[in-house]
């Protein structure tokens, strides 16, 4: 581990990491990765998010889909837990709620493989600090 010793270090590190994350998110030709984020706060885990995450890790590998599955915090949709976010290369991320193994299977088969949306989508209903420039 290289320590961050100065402001310049931190800025370089940020730039590098951002490229790394961007690359993964925007998926340039070399990396056509599918990204799955599972909301794993206490509430999500209590409603079965761990099982869903394991399902995605196992099944995406079995079905030969190049994907990263990561955990994240609460997305705020407690009424629809477990929730996941799927980001296909070059597309806006889509959040799905009420995801159990059956729904996960449907998401892999229809959305991840064919880009076909399935019911259970939760539209983004908030603004982020990035697009708020009042």
């Amino acid at each position, binding site marked *: 581990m290289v*320590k*961050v010793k100065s*402001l310049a270090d*931190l800025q370089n590190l940020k730039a590098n990491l951002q490229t790394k*994350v961007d690359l993964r998110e925007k998926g340039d030709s070399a990396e056509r990765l599918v990204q799955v984020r599972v909301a794993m706060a206490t509430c999500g885990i209590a409603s079965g998010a761990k099982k869903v995450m394991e399902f995605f890790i196992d099944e995406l590998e079995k079905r030969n889909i190049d994907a990263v599955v990561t955990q994240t915090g609460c997305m*705020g949709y407690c009424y629809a837990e477990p929730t996941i976010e799927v980001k296909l290369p070059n597309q806006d991320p889509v959040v799905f709620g009420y995801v159990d193994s059956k729904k996960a299977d449907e998401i892999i088969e229809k959305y991840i493989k064919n880009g076909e949306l399935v019911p259970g989508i939760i539209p983004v209903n*908030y*603004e*982020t600090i990035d697009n*708020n420039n009042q």
Partner: protein
Amino acid sequence: MHLLVCGGTGCRASASDAIVGKLQKELDEKNLQDEVQVVMTGCFGFCEKGPIVKVLPDNTFYVQVKPDDAKVIVEEHVIKGRKVEKLLYKDPADQKEISDSKHMGFYKKQLRIALRNCGVINPENIEEAIARDAYAALAKVLTEMTPQQAIQEMIDSGLRGRGGGGFPTGMKWKIASQNHADQKYVVCNADEGDPGAFMDRSILEGDPHSVIEAMAINGYCIGATKGLVYIRAEYPLAIERLKIAINQVREYGLLGDDILGTGFSFDIQLRYGAGAFVCGEETALIHSMEGERGEPTFKPPFPAESGYLGKPTNVNNVETYANIPVIYLKGANWFNKIGTAKSKGTKVFALAGKINNVGLIEVPMGTTLREVIYEIGGGIKDGKKFKAVQTGGPSGGCLTEKHLDTPIDYDNLIASGSMMGSGGMIVMDEDDCMVSVARFYLDFTVEESCGKCAPCRIGNKRLHEQLDIICKGKGTLADMDKLRNLSHVIKDTSLCGLGQTSPNPVLSTLDNFYDEYLEHVHDKKCRAGVCKDLMQYIIDTEPCVGCTACARVCPVGAISGERKGPHTIDQTICIKCGACMDKCKFNAISIH
């Protein structure tokens, strides 16, 4: 191509099911069912203009769509690629149609500042946090600002404490910075105790770095090198993620000695609370960390003067901290334009109770209760009638229909007889009895009172007894006067915030739902059917066919009657469990 139809409760009520059906039918007729998918989604949070249909990939956003519009959407938009203008949203300012939903962020009621990384980054991976600007604010403050400038920036931002009190954060820092000592402390209050509140837990679980970074900034500003997080032991996942995060930050050298070569050193340790509500009060919290009993002490001296181990200490809440890095990155002038005149920025609320979209939301200060409940929350469950929303937990009060259009901020909530509190919002409908609600909160305070001062220890107990008497139908009008008088005495004479605010649920329900109290006392009735002692299950002999189902299910044998003859319930034995009513197929049993 996709046609997304909003399936939120509001839109469903206005026929989104029929819209889906019609769209599908039109597509089938035109043989387009394989090219265009119709998908029902969750709530778009724009219920006032529902039902919503969104077309992908061009992001066209149609509002107030009727089932009969399906034909024109398919024929015009899907086939000919022309937008259906009459269904587009018109900007209220200039009546211009807005077609691309990417340009209509203004309809989004929520703005995520404190929750900016929650549900976005992997909380156990510092790299993702840094890629999203974590520690950039710390670097900026350490390298470009003096502590005085940084404190001034905080004062200018207008940020107020999110733990409930609403004290200006910058002022708190300034006071702590002016006290000199060989050692000072920064404390993060993560002792979230209000029933139904989970904002702080979610922030720590989703974005621990924002809190760590802000504590370091806080340390730099007031001249502290040690930070402590007081977190309840009931939050194991938050503790684990916080520990992982702290270790990663240390590895990166962003905590520890000589951070970024600036000579500033800061480190953070955890302290666990055993879950006592009173320990959320800062003096009690400090005593608990010192290994003393978690009891509050009189202020002054304020912690800024004499806090942890007698040293100047600054205590801020988790959500307050989560806001801070953004303020330094985007500037106090960006932050203080959000919100109302005296309450800046946003507030995170944990929306719970009888509401469709239970969840964690973050709205700019000044958003109305109506927007929160009906737009973001998707309205009341099962189409029932809204009765009240409880804010501020056991120290807060109830807001009712007449407060629905009040902009939510610190001062308006206090003026309405409630308070911001930490941000729990419990929505109640017509099936909730307000006397029982007041009793529930008193239950909580009686349990959580530390017992140090008499008004809180004895007064709240008496208050609870009075409420219990009323709920049992044995109250008199004199009891209601006693309730009010005793409440005021407790408020005026208790030592700490817990006792000073614990009668609030009683006073606010007395003010807003006096009729309901009166019914309990005078008519011995509970309109919501919650107070068991005030209701009777009665079998109507007319529809009763004597099937004996109720008698068989009754756990205490209170129901008797001949087979094929009408049955009766012996009220002296009945425990009012309601099993008979659930079982009866002939609707012969009702509550009186």
